[in-house]
């Protein structure tokens, strides 16, 4: 009986969380569509989320492309198909690894940062102070982050894809001894015309999921510095799972629409 009660309580809490998350997103969309706008906060967040994440995305993209070339080179050798390594690198990076790994990096860097920052503001009454001073925290804090996340995630993904393919090219040329021209023509041959769209559209949703989860978790923080720690961990975990889940569902939908 108590187990049933526990289950019911857990379900109620889960439904409440979903409801509150949905309410925040509705308020955010409404705030995006109507003034006032805090333009300098939007620019600040574009810089913090975009330029601030550049190093980690460059490194991740480069090494992923490089290791992909190494691994697939071995497998392709079994079929005498080593010159096709470019196809595998470009298709994998642009369709899947670029969006997902960039998303995971952003979840770790941006999602945690947003949750920690907003969480600290919550527990030190700074959010209440904002409201007391006549500022809507959703317009001032959430909207700039959501806009920056949605804009910068696709751009960072394109950068990750590019350096990943370059990483693969270096391995293909230096290690696998594939001719440079063969690699690049293989890169282009391996892609369907719809693939770049797939690689650009998915990060829009992934970026939105990461920042909106970070904001939601941050604004629900309670319980002092310990609460901020819990919020940060929770934001990273939930956002990381969301990246994978959003990737799956977006891929499913986009395949049925684009292909």
């Amino acid at each position, binding site marked *: 009986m108590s187990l049933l009660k526990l289950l019911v309580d857990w379900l109620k809490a889960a439904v409440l969380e979903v409801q509150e998350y949905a309410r925040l997103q509705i308020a955010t969309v409404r705030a995006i569509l109507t003034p006032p706008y805090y333009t300098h906060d939007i620019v600040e967040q574009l810089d913090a989320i975009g330029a601030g994440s550049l190093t980690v995305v460059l490194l991740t993209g480069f090494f992923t492309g490089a290791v992909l070339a190494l691994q697939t080179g071995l497998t392709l050798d079994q079929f005498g198909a080593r010159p096709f390594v470019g196809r595998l690198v470009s298709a994998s990076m642009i369709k899947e690894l670029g969006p997902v790994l960039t998303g995971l990096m952003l979840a770790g860097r941006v999602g945690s940062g947003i949750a920690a920052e907003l969480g600290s503001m919550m527990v030190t009454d700074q959010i209440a102070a904002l409201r*007391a001073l006549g500022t809507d925290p959703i317009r001032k804090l959430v909207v700039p982050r959501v806009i920056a996340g949605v804009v910068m995630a696709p751009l960072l993904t394109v950068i990750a894809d590019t350096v990943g393919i370059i990483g693969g090219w270096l391995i293909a040329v230096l290690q696998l001894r594939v001719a440079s021209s063969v690699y690049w023509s293989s890169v282009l041959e391996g892609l369907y015309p719809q693939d770049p769209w797939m690689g650009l559209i998915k990060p829009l949703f992934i970026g939105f999921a990461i920042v909106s989860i970070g904001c939601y978790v941050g604004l629900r923080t309670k319980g002092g510095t310990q609460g901020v720690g819990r919020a940060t961990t929770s934001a990273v975990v939930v956002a990381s799972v969301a990246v994978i889940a959003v990737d799956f569902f977006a891929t499913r939908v986009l395949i049925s629409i684009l292909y």
Partner: protein
Amino acid sequence: MAGNLTSSGSEQVGAAVAERDDAVVVFDNVHLAFDEKVILNGVSFTLDRGHTKIILGASGSGKSTILKLLLGLLKPDAGEIWINGERTDTMPESGLMKVRADLGMVFQEGALFDSLSVAENVGYRLYEETKMPLSDVRARVEEVLGFIGLHEFIDRQPSELSGGQRRRVAIARAMAFKPKILLYDEATTGLDPITATTVDEEVVKLRDVENVSSIVVTHQLRDAFFVATHEAVRDGDGRVRVVPADEQKCDEAEFIMLREGVISFEGNAHDLRTSQDRYLRTFLS
């Protein structure tokens, strides 16, 4: 004014009182509970223009909740809240933004924005929510920081300030946009007596020099009595001094004692000191 002990703490005031010219805040039979826990149970009081209401009570008695209700950060379960003749408890957030233009709040621990400098904190509302030219905002920031004696800290970060300085900057932030009502939430808690007196003097100066109505929430009796029994006067040379108040001025500061969500006492400093109520005696001792 004679002190009185009220069991329910509620007095029917309502819209008629709210429309009275001198009442800037009316709390009418306000109830609030979080789940099973009752926070406020029929709390009623009024604050007259230029007067001070000092809310005393033990930790968790609902003192700070009253300020959050006034600001519209929380909504009551029942009852009415009126500010400057406008009912705010049923107002949407967009309407509350306008009401908050008349309300300044000094939060416990200051709640300064960590990422902004002292100048940006103090001028926050003017920078972000008005179209005032930047040079005018800067001039106003310098003026209020001069008023509280922290002009030389204008370009510092909040992390570089002491606890007392942070509270005073919080007061400067709350007064920068010239609100008619200032709310102080434990503004002196955790400060040493000398710094606390400095903060108390700012509260008195704002009330008497700027004619700001004040609600002071505290459990620091020493500070509560200081604010209630002192007044600010301007000397011939324009300097402001804080001196002991006369009897009439003392009557303008009214105490409320909150106990388990109800008002258990209302009256002036003299009534409070002479009350024979056992709980009050324990609280005062």
